[in-house]
C-alpha cells in the first residue's frame, strides 16, 4: 500500500465537510438558546421536550410511519417479483420492462410527482395518505429491485435444481431454499425503502393535500426561526434513527453475502 499523506488529509477534510451539518445538529439541539448561533449558551434537553408541544408532530409521525411501512412492504414485494423474474427467467421485452421499472431512478422527482398529480386530479381521485403511498412505491421500487436483483444473482441456480432434484416442487423450492437465502436482501430492501419513504418530501408535499407528514412538517417548521431549535432536536433523533437502520441493513446485507459464501463487493447501490 502506497503512502499518500496528501490524499489522506483531503479524505479527512472531505468527510468533515460531508458530516458538518450532521455534526452541527446535536451541538445546537442541546444548546440552551433560542437563536442558533455561536457562542454556545449551555447544555439543555428542553428542545426535546418542546418539540412535542405541537400536536401536529405526533400526527405527522404517525402518518409517516403508516406511509413508510406500507411503502416498504409494497415496494419490496413488487421488487421481489421484478428481481426474481429478471434474474431467473428469459423473456422477450425484458430490457424495456425493467428499464421502465427503474426509470423513476433517473427522472426528476418533481416530474414524477406532477405527472401523478395531473392524472389523479383528472380521474378525480382525492389526495390522501394512500396517494402518497402510491407515489412512494413508484420511486422506491427501483431501489428495492436493485438490492433484490443482486441478492437473487448471488444465489447459485444449482441450489434450486438440487431442491427440485430431491423431490421439491417449484413452489416449495422457492419457500425452502430461495426465500431463506435472499432473506437478508429482502430485509435490507425493506429498511432502505422505509428510510427513503420517511425522508421523501416532494411527493409527500404535493400528493398529500397538506396532511402533516414528517418531512413536510420539518420543511415548514424550519421557516420559523423560533421553531428551529426544536427541529434540530427532532433532526438529531431522526438522524440517529436512520443511522441505526442503515447499520442494521448493512449487517443483513453482509450476513447475506457471507451466508452464500460470496465475496463482499462494497455497499449499497
Amino acid at each position, binding site marked *: 500500500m502506497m503512502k499518500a499523506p496528501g490524499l489522506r488529509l483531503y479524505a479527512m477534510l472531505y468527510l468533515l465537510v460531508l458530516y458538518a451539518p450532521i455534526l452541527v445538529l446535536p451541538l445546537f439541539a442541546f444548546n440552551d438558546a433560542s437563536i442558533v448561533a455561536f457562542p454556545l449558551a449551555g447544555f439543555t434537553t428542553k428542545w426535546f421536550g418542546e418539540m412535542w408541544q405541537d400536536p401536529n408532530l405526533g400526527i405527522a409521525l404517525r402518518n409517516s410511519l403508516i406511509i413508510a411501512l406500507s411503502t416498504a412492504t409494497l415496494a419490496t414485494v413488487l421488487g421481489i417479483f421484478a428481481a426474481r423474474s429478471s434474474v431467473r427467467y428469459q423473456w422477450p421485452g425484458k430490457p424495456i420492462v425493467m428499464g421502465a421499472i427503474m426509470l423513476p431512478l433517473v427522472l426528476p422527482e418533481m416530474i414524477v410527482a406532477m405527472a401523478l398529480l395531473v392524472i389523479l386530479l383528472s380521474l378525480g381521485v382525492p389526495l390522501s395518505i394512500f396517494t402518497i403511498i402510491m407515489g412512494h412505491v413508484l420511486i422506491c421500487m427501483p431501489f428495492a429491485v436493485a438490492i433484490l436483483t443482486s441478492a437473487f444473482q448471488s444465489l*447459485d441456480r*444449482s*441450489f434450486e*435444481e*438440487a*431442491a*427440485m*432434484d*430431491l*423431490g*421439491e*416442487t417449484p413452489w416449495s423450492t422457492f419457500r425452502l*431454499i430461495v426465500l*431463506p*437465502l435472499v432473506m437478508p436482501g429482502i430485509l435490507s430492501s425493506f429498511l432502505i425503502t422505509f428510510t427513503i419513504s420517511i425522508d421523501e418530501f416532494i411527493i409527500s408535499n404535493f400528493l398529500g393535500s397538506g396532511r402533516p407528514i414528517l418531512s413536510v412538517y420539518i420543511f415548514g417548521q424550519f421557516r420559523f426561526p423560533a421553531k428551529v431549535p426544536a427541529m434540530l432536536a427532532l433532526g438529531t433523533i431522526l438522524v440517529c434513527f436512520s443511522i441505526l437502520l442503515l447499520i442494521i441493513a448493512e449487517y443483513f446485507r453482509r450476513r447475506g453475502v457471507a*451466508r*452464500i*459464501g460470496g465475496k463482499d463487493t462494497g455497499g449499497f447501490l
Partner: protein
Amino acid sequence: MTFSAERSTMIEFRDIQKYYGDYHALRGINGTIKAGEFFSLLGPSGCGKTTLLRTIAGFEGIDSGAVLIDGKDMKGVPPNVRPTNMVFQSYAIFPHMSVAENVAFGLRRDPRSRAEKASAVEEALQMVGLKGFGARAAHALSGGQRQRVALARALILKPKVLLLDEPLSALDKKMREHMQVELIKLQRQVGITFILVTHDQEEALVMSDRIAVMFEGQIAQLADPETLYRRPNSKKVADFIGTMNFLPCSVLSEAGGRIEIEAQGLGRVTLTEDQAPPPRGESPVVGLRPETLTLLYPGQTTAERVVGGKVDEAIYFGDMTYYDVYLDGTDIEVRLSMRNVPGRPILDVGEQVKVAWSPEALVLFR
C-alpha cells in the same frame, strides 16, 4: 470392473435432438445405459455431455426423441418425481442448513418417523465417511466434505440412477484421485447406476464400466475403456483419449480380412480387420500409442520389428521419460514413453536409437 452384458437396460436414449435457439446442442443421441453400470459421458467442454445429463435429470427439455428411465418415457415428468438424483458440479450444499439438514432434505415428504429419518441420515453420512458431521454448518466444510455431503444427500433417497456432473473438477489432484477410488467403491456398495460427466479422459478410463465419448452434440464412440483406448473408432477419439502418434500411410491391398499398408517410417505392414474401424473417407493414417513403442538399448534384441531414429527431445517425468524421435527416412516425429528403471540411462538429444514396434498395436484410420 468388468461389465456383464446380461444386465437390464436402465436408461435409453432414442434419437434425442435439442436446440438452444439456433444452436444444435444434441444431434441424434442414441444408446443405452445398463442397470448397475458406472457410465461416463466424456468430451471436451461444449460437446453436450452436461446437457445430456441434465435431460436425464429433467432440467432440460428435449425437442424430439425420448429419454426412457427403467422403461418409462420421461416426457413431461418433472425433476422432482424422476427416479434420479444428482451431485452438482458446485455441489449445491444449501448454505443455510446444517450437514444433517442437507442430507435429510429429500426426506421431507417421507412418511417415516423423525427417529427413523435421523438414523437414515447417520447411516448415509457414515457411508460417505462423514460420521458425526451432522451438526456442522454447511459453509464450514472443505471441498471434499461438501462433495461427500452431496453424495449422501442424493443416495439417501435410494435413486435408481445417480447423476454426477463433473463432481471432482473442483478438487485438487490428490483429493481427486482419492475420491475417484471412493466413488468406485461406493458405486459397488450401493449397486445402482452411476452416470458421470467429465472432461478428464483419465478419470473416465479409471472409473467407468463404459464410456460415451461425445463431440459436438453426438456420441462418437460408446465402449468399455479398453476398447476405447486400444481400438478408438476415429482419429478424433484416438486423439482425445490419451496420446496417439499418427503416421500417413497408403492402403496397398485389402482381401480376406487382411489389409496391407505402406506406412511412412514403418514400411509395409499387414493389419487385421479389427484394426481398421469403418472408413470415413479421410486420408489414411495409422495410429500407435507411445507405450507400444520401445527404445532398444545397446545389446538388446527383440522379436518385434525395429526402425531407426534420432532423439529430438527427452522429457523427464520422474517415473517415465517421454522421447520425441524422428523416424529414419521421414520428417515425422513420434512420441514414445519409457519407464525409468535402474540401468536405463536417459538418452541425450541427437542420439541415434532403435525403436521396436509391433503391427498388432496399430490402428488404421481412413
